[in-house]
């Protein structure tokens, strides 16, 4: 399980970096095509938007793994260790539940729109929604891993406020 998880995290990290590179290259390619060859790059904006969607949901898994989600734990930090541990368990459990709902919602949306396509690039909806389906499933897994770790440790993590 640990090996699989580590491999999945490595893939997520490199895939996210590749998407970031694609986000930079696509508008640049649009400028080069327009400026140097006076040719329109049809669908460049739609492609860049798709890369952004993919980056958000795939890289969010990396954010979750790094425990870098934006949050404020100032008030939580004032609680005694046991209630704080219980609260952190509730937060982890609600994370699992929320991402599972997001996964179910996106999977249902894909199932109901199998034949639809986007306007310019004619991306099939299953491809358009793939990042949110995969990302939300992996986010649920990351939240579950965190929940299990905290349960085993029987003590809360130190206060950690992350704002950006």
């Amino acid at each position, binding site marked *: 399980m640990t090996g699989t998880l580590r491999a999945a995290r490595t893939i997520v990290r490199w895939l996210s970096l590749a998407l970031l590179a694609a986000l930079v290259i696509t508008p*640049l390619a649009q*400028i080069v095509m327009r400026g140097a060859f006076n040719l329109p790059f049809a669908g460049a904006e739609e492609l860049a*938007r798709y890369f952004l969607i993919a980056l958000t949901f795939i890289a969010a898994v990396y954010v979750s793994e790094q425990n870098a989600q934006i949050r404020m734990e100032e*008030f*939580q930090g004032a609680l005694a260790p046991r209630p704080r541990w219980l609260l952190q368990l509730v937060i982890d459990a609600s994370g699992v539940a*929320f991402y599972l709902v997001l996964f179910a*919602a996106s999977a249902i*949306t894909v199932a109901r729109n199998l034949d639809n396509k986007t306007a310019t690039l004619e991306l099939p909806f299953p491809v358009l929604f793939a990042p949110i389906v995969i990302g939300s499933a992996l986010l649920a897994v990351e939240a579950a891993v965190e929940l299990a770790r905290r349960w085993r440790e029987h003590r809360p993590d130190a206060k950690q406020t992350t704002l950006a």
Partner: protein
Amino acid sequence: MTGFIVIAAFVLLFMLGFPVVLAIGIPSVVYLLANDLPIDVIAQRTLYALDSFPLVAVPVFLFVGSVMNHAGISKFIYRFADTAVSRLPGGLAQVNIFGSLVFAGMSGSALADVGGIGRIEIKSMTDKGFKPEFASAVTCASAIVGPIFPPSIPLILYGTITGVSVLQLLLGGIVPGLLCVAMLMLMTAYLAARRGYPRATRWPTPRELLHDLLPAAPAVAAPVILIGGMFSGWFTPTEIAAVTVAYVLLISLVFYRELTWRGLIDAGLETLRSSAAILLIIAVAALFGWILAVEQVPQAMTKAFLSISTDPTVLLLLVNALLLVVGMFLDATTAILIIAPIIAKPLMAAGVDPVHLGMVVVFNLMIGLVTPPMGLALFLVADIAKVPMRAVLREMWPYYVPLLVTLALITFIPALTTWVPRLAIGN
């Protein structure tokens, strides 16, 4: 009423330490399930919130800031600023502010400023005998310029959420950014005169100035290219972001030659951490915003605001008071995503220019970055300088004056924000 319960649930969960994504997402999902609304709405709203070309600029500009820090460019900017302005009263404190302005011209984030050039500024100032608390306070205050002077991540977010032109918002930040720098420099000169801070013994000769300008020139030229590109209408903000990355990578590899493959990967990972955290909130906040719209919260707020006054100046003062408090407790991204759609409608209905309002909102929230209890720039700077936050705050107090004066000027003189965008449109 239900809309306000959803907002109250968000505030409660946020205060309890839930990640913002969950604090926004859980009440939204509960609302949808309780009202028997189709589950498809969740996936559609979150996905389509990101289907925006201007938003692409957010990770790309964040990448610029990270690459600059990993490529050692900040060091050359600082050396040039040192030569150019260290003779001014306050010496290195003025260099700190001027350096932040140059850095701000490429990076749209206050935290990239603090973590990058801020690190160098604090060390140089303490080496020259300034108290680390004072060095931290100046770094903190000047970092505010980063998200005001173009490019600016918060202004891009504001434009995307409210539908105001991102290009006009970015151009609108030029004068307020310069004004803020001027105010901070004036306060520094005043403090220097009272406290007798050291400064350079003479002005640099043209030869010395040129000597330090040449290595910094490729970096200093970037804001000129960026603003020129936007002003001329050649590029959209997203294209400008991509051009800036290409330019910064080019000068890092060809000119400065300090960027390693490992550094580039680290810059990428740093960008992923901050941008995906922000973008996921944007996605889920769209669902939250949709619920507020269904519950007619913006309309209720419009009625409430306009019942107090229909005078734009009075309403802007109310917004200032509200946002200064909000900024103390909420991070800027969350505040923009939750508050902006609610207050934009009544203010625009009262005749406030949307670009002007955007600047007032973002400037207020940036002041929140340097005010306790949730001022992240304060946390970061105290961590870098290894001084207690309380000590930084003691030195920070005088700098709230120029920040609030700038805010007042921006609030009462809309032309300070709207003049440049109008000039560009005229062109």
